[in-house]
């Protein structure tokens, strides 16, 4: 799970839960803080990193649920997503994924062949991560209770590099992104009914541990690490700025975006930094490690780039610097992401 506490903005908790509460942005944080953190209060939870660090910093432990629709999308399916999602949460703590559980809730009438396909996808992804499923659960619910298939996975990993934390950023550090952004979100939107954009775009969904392993083996000290899932790169940068009490200054034109993602964003009125990714991570390192980290990242994706520097300009905010000398704040995305006319 990835959350942040205390956004410093007062929100009144609504009477009913809305779709926006699941958006990974402001409302989501509010839901988590006001209901779950309030009741489950403890030191480990309060750290709210991608995965919980337990057993004196030796292990990382995490869970995630997958409800994506459509179940099969260009470049992946819910199964691949379920393994990548949880293994990536572990990788983001510098942990090598080792053991997983897999629980599924299946809607009555779901095609067995599709289920088989999905599970085979999961198997393939587990092999890439070097992890195994050691426990699970299956439930079948009456038709109409859920939308085809929901998967929950938990994972445990062995931490290979300690101290990676969203609150560890300091002035002078560099922020890099592992590849071009917004691909998963754009792919899902394009495939959505009613929008029907024809594109060869594929999700970026991928297992990230292999890239993290490379960085750790090269002796690079990873200061902060996070995959840019719901809320996109925008959410990650904002969380880091607040957790570490720093300003993250982004060179706007350095943010890598593929042509097609740009096309979808133009058509629907989105910003690529607000769109979800499933195989893209943001990395903070000391300035002296910037070039070696970049070189390593570019071995996997040529589009990896340095996008920001940590400063003290506007504490707890993310600043976007344009190439013509203007600035603006990059805020956390709020509400449901929908195409707009104005």
């Amino acid at each position, binding site marked *: 799970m990835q959350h942040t506490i205390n956004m410093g*903005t007062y*929100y009144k908790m*609504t009477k*009913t*839960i*809305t*779709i*926006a509460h699941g958006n990974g942005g402001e409302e989501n944080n509010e839901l988590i803080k006001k209901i779950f953190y309030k009741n489950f209060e403890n030191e480990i939870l309060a750290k709210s990193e991608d995965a919980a660090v337990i057993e004196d910093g030796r292990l990382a432990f995490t869970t995630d649920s997958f409800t994506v629709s459509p179940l099969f999308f260009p470049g992946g399916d819910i199964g691949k997503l379920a393994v990548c999602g949880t293994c990536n949460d572990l990788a983001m703590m510098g942990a090598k994924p080792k053991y997983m559980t897999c629980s599924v809730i299946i809607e009555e009438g779901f095609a067995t062949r599709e289920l088989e396909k999905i599970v085979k996808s999961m198997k393939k992804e587990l092999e890439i991560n070097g992890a195994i499923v050691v426990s699970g659960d299956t439930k079948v619910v009456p038709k109409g209770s859920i939308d085809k298939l929901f998967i929950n996975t938990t994972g445990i990993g062995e931490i290979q590099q300690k101290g990676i934390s969203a609150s560890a950023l300091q002035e002078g550090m560099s922020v890099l992104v592992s590849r071009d952004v917004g691909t998963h979100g754009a792919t899902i939107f394009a495939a959505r009914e*009613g*929008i029907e954009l024809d594109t060869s775009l594929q999700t970026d969904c991928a297992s990230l541990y292999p890239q993290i392993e490379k960085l750790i083996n090269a002796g690079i000290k990873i200061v902060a690490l996070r995959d840019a899932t719901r809320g996109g790169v925008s959410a990650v940068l904002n969380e880091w700025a607040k957790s570490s009490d720093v300003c993250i200054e982004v060179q706007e*034109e350095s943010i890598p975006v593929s042509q097609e993602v740009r096309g979808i964003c*133009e058509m*629907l009125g989105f910003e690529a930094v607000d769109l979800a990714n499933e195989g893209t991570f943001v990395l903070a390192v000391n300035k002296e490690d910037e070039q070696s980290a970049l070189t390593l990242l570019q071995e996997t994706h040529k589009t990896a780039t340095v996008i920001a520097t940590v400063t003290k300009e*506007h504490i707890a905010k993310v600043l976007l610097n*344009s*190439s*013509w*000398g*203007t*600035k*603006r*704040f990059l*805020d956390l995305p709020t*509400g*449901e992401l*929908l*195409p*707009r*006319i*104005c």
Partner: protein
Amino acid sequence: MVELELKNLYDDFRDGETIKAYAKIIAEDAAKLEKPINIMEVCGGHTHTIMKFGLPQLLPANVNFIHGPGCPVCIMPKERIDHAYVLAMQEGVILVTLGDMIKVPGSNGSLQDARAKGADVRFVYSPMECIKIAEENTDKKVIFFAIGFETTTPMTAVLVEQVIKQKIPNVFFHINHVTVPEVMVELIDSRDVHVDSYNNEIDAFLGPSHVSVISGSKIYDKFPKDYGRPVVVTGFEPVDAMQGISMIVKQFVEKRCELEIQYKRVVNHDGNLKAQELIGKYFEKMSLFRWRGLGNVPNSGLKLRQEFAEYDAEVLYKSVLPIAEIEDHKLCICGDILRGMAKPQECTIFGTACKPTTPIGSCMVSSEGACAAYYKYGNLL
């Protein structure tokens, strides 16, 4: 250059060097101005461009923006937002509208809230999807809650035409299209004698880009002629905006007062005549339409013509739709802010009762309205 490529139409109108060059030209010309000038960009889309590209930071101190009414949804009076909510909650109704409507708050909540309560609300990219939705749900009534300025109105007209031609029995319309020139007049010369528009500070208008594609620049003829306000119809890319501002500044320096078109690649004097015909065929003006924060603006709202009453959701659901006008909060000074007579921070409820999450007036409802922008960017502006 001989061959135009698609990417030229994007990149060349967003080029950082060109933006900086225009900033320089504007600064040089503005030094010759006799007094400061205030330019209103009418449409929320221009406000979006201005904020996103940080253009106020590039302008000299004597060239200022007065942010316009914002988006066509932000200016809708609360009672009409309530219409959307009430219709959505009706048994057997699928309410279809565009994404901009999702968060706008009415008295009972927004459409997002209605959906959370079980209403079937669908946000579409194109109005034509209503036909598909209607065909897939023949037992339901599909009501299209139409929003938008002149840009979006002809598309609704096409939908109406197709629904009639294809004899689709279960699509209905709630029309909330509004027009731009009338509200521009209201700001500088209010119909209401009790409203102080006499002291407004608007010196010139940056004319909306795509409204003008449909209606032509002819709709702004009266502003230089009868009201002494130059209008430059400008595109929505940052280079377009900077060029448009430069053209306005030059008019003041050269003591001209004219209607000019910056956005020449798509705007001309007459506009899209077929689109205008379609609008005229299916819609007519309402004598009054209430704008949030501004009160009644004559001839600024559209409704379905009488002969199409059988498709009009406002007629069909008359018995359940609230008619009481909901007054704007008495402390809301959006009207003055829109006229440049007050700034957001001078409003007594700015930042307290009125914030982006609990907006009261249109300047805060619109995510780029003057108040919302000031709230977000405050010390960067």
